[in-house]
């Protein structure tokens, strides 16, 4: 999608959206400070924060614990506590996230029928909203609903945070095979 390439702020972005995005960036900073991939996200339903998350892959040893998946579980908890129908809540919830959701998360968002995702920078390695695949927009059978994206808010900052993280070595990654052989 061409729109994801444009670095300027998208016109559809409202002041309210910007302030939610700022909060998402604070979460990403928290992740960076805790040695996790700096991605932060919020889920907002009826102007109310119903879930938030940051990457928890290393602490759970579960590679699927991306910020979005963590936030989804918080929304489920919120629904339980407030006796709300989770299906209906997700269908009226906006996701704010500092980095384009990956292919897995984009699939999850489809399954939950989240209608709108606002994100900062592209995810060149795993992006599921146009960078590697367009899970958000493709016409996939039996896989929930397509969703709309507004991208580009503070993209530069999101990229810088990722760069800072990837400069450090991931202590949990397996030793390289080359080293093992020697």
């Amino acid at each position, binding site marked *: 999608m061409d729109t994801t390439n444009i670095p300027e702020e998208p016109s559809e972005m409202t002041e309210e959206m910007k302030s939610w995005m700022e909060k998402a960036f604070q979460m990403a900073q928290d992740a960076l400070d805790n040695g996790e991939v700096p991605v932060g996200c919020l889920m907002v339903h009826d102007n109310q924060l119903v879930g938030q998350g940051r990457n928890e892959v290393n602490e759970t040893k*579960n590679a*699927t614990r991306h910020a979005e998946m963590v936030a989804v579980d918080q929304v*489920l908890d919120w629904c339980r506590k407030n006796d709300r129908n989770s299906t209906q809540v997700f269908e009226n919830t906006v996701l704010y996230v500092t980095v384009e959701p990956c292919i897995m998360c984009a699939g999850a968002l489809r399954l939950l029928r989240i209608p709108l995702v606002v994100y900062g920078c592209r995810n060149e390695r795993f992006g*599921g909203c146009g960078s590697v695949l367009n899970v958000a927009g493709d016409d996939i059978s039996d896989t929930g609903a397509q969703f709309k994206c507004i991208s580009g808010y503070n993209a530069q900052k999101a990229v810088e945070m990722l760069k800072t993280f990837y400069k450090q070595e991931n202590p949990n990654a397996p030793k390289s095979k080359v080293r093992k052989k020697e």
Partner: protein
Amino acid sequence: MAPSADNDAHTSQWSLTPVLSPEEEQELKEYTSGNINPPLCLYFAAPIIDKKQISRLTQILSLQYPLPDCMKHLKRVRAQQTRLEMLLRPASLEEKMTFSKDSGADCTENAGICRSENIRKDDDTSQVPSLTDIFKDGAIDLSGLGDPFVVSVPMRSARNRKEQQVWAGIWPSTYHEKPKTVNLEEASHGGVSDEEKLRIGAHMRRAIEAAQLNQARGGKGIGAVVVDQESGKVLAVGTDRSGEKRELLLHACMVVIDMVARQQGGGAYECLAGLENEQQPKMHSVTKDDEKQIGDEKENRKRTKESSEHCTGELPYLCTGYEVYVTHEPCIMCSMALLHSRVSCVYYGCCSPGGALGTFYRLHCHPGLNHKFLVFRGVMENECKALDVGQEV
């Protein structure tokens, strides 16, 4: 589908089909049929009339007219029955147009493929420019070269031994055997050994049994099993839980991924905490040398321990080296979750409409992603299909 008479577990009729990338699919098709059509392009070549000049010519050509990176497989010199011949440089698009117009050779640039009978005759020199014209972009000392001609050469390196044989008949090329995602020889003869099929089937049976149990309790009837390839140990057996309002995303693959994480001291879903014991009955290891090892559990365990210590000396990283057996083709979320978890191989029974390991996407061999894994479909397909599924897999 009608339930087949030999629905019996041990004689079940199913075949293991590798899910390949479009390129691999084409390669396998050509390999199996033996009908290999090499993509060709045209080069200028010339006979060597003074052998003493070979090393000088080779040197100067590699400096001034180096082979493009994608053509490095070509050897500069070939030995024909009566003489040696040397590749000079690729023919340009305009030059090719002239040849095909005049000689009627069916070598279109777009198709890039010429059938061997259409390969230009080497002695057809009617339209070939002179050596001086060929090297007009940088004159070189031409001594030692005879009258130039045009020759078809393979446009890329050979991908397998059969291709290499065909390539050799066209122009000598180097061939480096690359690790294959799938054994072509095996795949072209209809798959794996009976022994291996038995092993795969036994693990899938575990997934099907779990799915049946899940279905009986009102679930969607989708099951998944994680197996450590090296030891043959079953690490997790799980089923879809997404029917629960509270666990919308807990498809079978997401469940077993978290069960593995839990065994490694992690885990995210509290609802899965007690499950390992409930769904992990007897230790079930089916390895290649099962028959030898059977009844010698101690020896087996020792071997497993040793080999895992020998290989890593530490806890496994996510699902590295693990196989996943799942009754239905995983959706895009689950497929990417498996990729993030770095599984080594996925076996599934039947295809899903929105499936991402072959049906809608082929995520496991997507060129833009950092981890690739093997995928096979069709494992006990009928039994898997018979599990009545809900809407979303």
